[in-house]
């Protein structure tokens, strides 16, 4: 096929991965990593200008455009953050250059996998891409090769594999459902074809398929009770990876889920996917909210907050309707930006304090004002307080739900409230009070973090009409 933006977002990371695997010296590789990520971002943005036509394997439409740009953007900022982060890790000798080389290669490989999953027009291809993303992240989670890291990686790996297997089974079932209608062969797996004929598929097959896909990809999304891998993987891996996991990988899995939800929604005879998603979303939200309270590891805490927000997002999409879908998309975007920014902050904090244990850090706003207030800002944003973006999305989710399903909204609201309590309970000890632990300044760059916050802040106050239009189109697409 011809080389256009679509293939660009795949080729650049792939090439970069190979190159980085070959090159020594972390400074160079880190820079290359940033450059590659930036180029990918540019190509992704160009998708908006010239829309390449989608083929049997690759596809670009309003839905995945949003995801791709988000992914590449956060990928880029994270690569900037990771450059300074990794530099520090090497200084303190937590990582050896060989591992850094491996790390950067994997980073790009992960980018490649996620982009592939997003642009894949073929459900089989999508599945392969997500599996690949999982494997790469597994390797990166285990990269410190400490006791905890290996265990987290192992847990992630086993649970992830099972998830993958379930997802595959679902995919096969979808194919089986499609085959009698579409006919044998490739086209029974091509998304654009499926979506047009979905109404004629066998509902029973679709139902079973959706159950498997929900559980399979839901594991990746981190929905309770399939979430078990998520907190540890976030806590033990290198922080840039935690940022990417929370900010991107969960979204990619969610994206897959959404695709199949659309498929099912188009089939009148099949079960409505909404209630299932709503239930799992609510469970995740409430559960994670309560789990926030007894966390002692700062990264694990924010991992649980990711679960909570994924719950909210899935809930929103489950509710459906233009407003709720819009809210879900908005919430997803805002959450990606905010959460990754928080992880940037947390990464620097952990490096300053030399630990991730909340008990050993305190009074950050006194000792490291930028970091401390950055974290406060992040928590304020993630807790859904105005004037930051998440407030808007939560406002839309809750208010639009309450008019339709009061009790669900009440449950959701209580979850949000409980989560807020948990987050601020910890924030108080981390950011305020008497300083605890080492208080040296970190020389890292806070630019990525504050860029994210700036965007989230701006979105909370003013959303450019173009963006709104795009989101609304996608919301309509999602039905």
């Amino acid at each position: 096929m011809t080389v256009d933006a679509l293939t660009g977002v795949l080729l650049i990371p792939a090439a970069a991965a190979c190159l980085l695997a070959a090159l020594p010296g972390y400074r160079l590789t880190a820079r290359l990593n940033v450059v590659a990520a930036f180029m990918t971002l540019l190509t992704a943005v160009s998708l908006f200008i010239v829309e390449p036509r989608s083929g049997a394997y690759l596809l670009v439409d309003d839905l995945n455009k949003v995801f791709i740009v988000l992914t590449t953007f956060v990928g880029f900022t994270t690569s900037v953050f990771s450059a300074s982060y990794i530099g520090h890790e090497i200084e303190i000798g937590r990582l050896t250059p060989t591992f850094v080389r491996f790390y950067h290669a994997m980073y790009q490989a992960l980018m490649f996998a996620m982009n592939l999953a997003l642009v894949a027009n073929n459900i089989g291809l999508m599945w392969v891409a997500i599996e690949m993303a999982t494997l790469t992240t597994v390797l990166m989670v285990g990269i410190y090769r400490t006791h905890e890291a290996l265990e987290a990686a192992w847990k992630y790996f086993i649970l992830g594999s099972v998830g993958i297997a379930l997802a595959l089974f679902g995919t096969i079932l979808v194919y089986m459902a499609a085959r009698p209608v579409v006919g044998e062969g490739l086209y029974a797996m091509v998304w654009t074809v499926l979506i047009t004929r979905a109404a004629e598929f066998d509902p029973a097959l679709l139902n079973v398929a959706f159950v498997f896909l929900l559980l399979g990809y839901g594991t990746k999304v981190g929905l309770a009770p399939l979430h078990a891998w998520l907190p540890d993987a976030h806590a033990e891996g290198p922080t840039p990876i935690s940022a990417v996991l929370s900010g991107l990988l969960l979204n990619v899995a969610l994206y897959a889920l959404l695709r199949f939800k659309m498929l099912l929604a188009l089939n009148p005879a099949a079960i409505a996917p909404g209630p299932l998603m709503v239930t799992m979303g609510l469970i995740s939200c409430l559960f994670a909210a309560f789990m926030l309270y007894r966390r002692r590891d700062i990264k694990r805490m924010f991992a649980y907050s990711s679960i909570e927000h994924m719950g909210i997002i899935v809930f929103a999409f489950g509710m459906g309707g233009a407003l709720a879908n819009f809210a879900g998309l908005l919430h997803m975007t805002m959450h990606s930006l905010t959460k990754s920014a928080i992880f940037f902050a947390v990464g620097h904090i952990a490096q300053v304090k030399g630990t991730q244990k909340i008990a050993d850090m305190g009074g950050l706003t006194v000792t490291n004002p930028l970091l401390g207030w950055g974290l406060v800002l992040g928590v304020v944003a993630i807790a859904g307080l105005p004037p930051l973006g998440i407030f808007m999305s939560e406002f839309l989710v809750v208010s639009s739900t309450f008019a339709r399903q009061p009790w669900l909204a009440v449950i959701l609201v209580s979850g949000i409230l409980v989560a807020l309590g948990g987050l601020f309970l910890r924030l108080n000890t981390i950011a305020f009070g008497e300083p605890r632990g080492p208080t040296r300044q970190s020389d890292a760059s806070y630019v990525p973090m504050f860029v994210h916050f700036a965007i989230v802040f701006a979105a909370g106050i003013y959303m450019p009409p173009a963006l709104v239009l795009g989101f609304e189109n996608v919301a309509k697409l999602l039905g």
Partner: protein
Amino acid sequence: MRGSLTFDIAHLLAGSLVLVSFMQLYQDRLYALLNIYALHALVLAASVAWQAFVQDAPHLYLTAVIALVFKAIVIPMALHRIIVRLGIHREIETVVGVGPAMLLGMGLVALSMVVMLRVTAEADPLAREDLAFALSVVLLGLLMMVTRRNAVSQVVGFMSLENGLVLAATGAKGMPLVVEISVAFSVLIAFIVIGIFLFRIRERFDTVDVQALDRFRGERR
């Protein structure tokens, strides 16, 4: 689809795959379990080959070969060696006794039948039956994973689950990427096995018993 003989044979093979899954469930020795798994893979290979013949899709033969060589021979031997190397004690520790496990398995099979036979008959019966069996194999594999304590037996459980997948994939007539998928899965399994062996777990735990792996549970209580 040609005559009912093909159908019967495919049916037979798929059914026997389920049967072998059941056999796995009541093993209490690791070596025996490995052998049964080899048998499992063998049956799978046969049924894949048969499908290849039925659908005259040559690429499926490749899958069959992979199943035969990789799953029926390489993996079991590797695991065998690991058991010897790591000196894992040989008997399987079960969570629920064999009897209940079997009953559960029955229930699962029944469940998968019920779920799958709702599928309207337009989807050809071969696929339908195959899917029903595949689903029960998958579920049995999962059951195995959750009712066994040893990592090795869990791995075996996972692999039989995956066999179920391949069965389904090959049963799905003309499904593209089957080979790729089976290859990808073999890679996955290889990773697991390597994980057990090379993933430095040996250095840190004197057994691969998953509980020992979990003895350190992320966040200390």
